[in-house]
């Protein structure tokens, strides 16, 4: 469809959540904004392929997600390095205040496999249905569900089970929750 005023406004209105998605995916604000810019350029260049009445945010998220993935392959080493050094600075420090907890959460999120991270963000933060998230990621609904579940398990392990690389026995989780309640 042609770029009408209202479509343009809708695209602009999607920018804040596109940025949030990009930052959550990349963990890097500058790179995220470049991704958003590239997404907007692509979207406008291909606006004719947008189906009127279909889900505009989902369409834009799909573009951004695909850009990120092609970009990610090129930069994987860089990302892993950044992740490694970042994680190291956090490892010895328990979450003592909200800010630190926030940083720790972000670091944990970056440790998730990309498939799981994007599924969790789309469903848990962007508010897409499993169906929309599946369409954005080009996979089955069941796949998204299982990725989201695995992402949650892994985050639990990283954040709330001390020192565990894998998700440990339930007893450990209960002990952590029960023991550090106060």
């Amino acid at each position, binding site marked *: 469809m042609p*770029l009408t005023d209202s479509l343009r406004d809708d695209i602009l209105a999607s920018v804040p959540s596109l940025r*949030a998605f990009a930052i959550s995916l990349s963990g890097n604000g500058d790179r995220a904004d470049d991704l958003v810019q590239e997404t*907007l350029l692509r979207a406008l260049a291909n606006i004719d392929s947008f189906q009127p009445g279909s889900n505009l945010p989902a369409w834009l998220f799909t573009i951004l997600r695909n850009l990120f993935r092609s970009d990610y392959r090129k930069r994987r080493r860089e990302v892993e390095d950044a992740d490694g050094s970042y994680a190291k600075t956090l490892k010895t420090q328990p979450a003592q205040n909200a800010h630190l907890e926030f940083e720790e959460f972000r670091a944990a999120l970056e440790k998730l496999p990309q498939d799981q991270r994007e599924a969790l963000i789309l469903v848990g933060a962007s508010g897409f249905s499993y169906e929309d998230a599946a369409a954005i990621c080009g996979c089955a609904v069941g796949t998204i569900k299982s990725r989201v*579940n*695995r992402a949650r*398990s892994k985050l639990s392990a990283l954040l709330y089970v001390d020192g565990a690389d894998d998700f440990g026995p339930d007893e450990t989780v209960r002990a952590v929750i029960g023991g550090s309640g106060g």
Partner: protein
Amino acid sequence: MKDVKSQAGRSAVPGKQGGLNAEIQSRIGHQLRAMYDDVVRQGVPDRFADLIRKLDASDDNPQLGNTGEIKNDGRE
């Protein structure tokens, strides 16, 4: 009845939430949204509003590279 222990020791339990504590789940959900909404609340940076305006203005013009001038008004 399945014992909870039968699920323990596996890194990912298919199908179910794998005995994950509901409180942990809600905390994760809360943190995820807090992080996300923090960015959403920043709104639309000028950079992107300008970009859309420029692209819109140069709609008939395939050359998008010239950021300096917008030949919209005064030309048909």
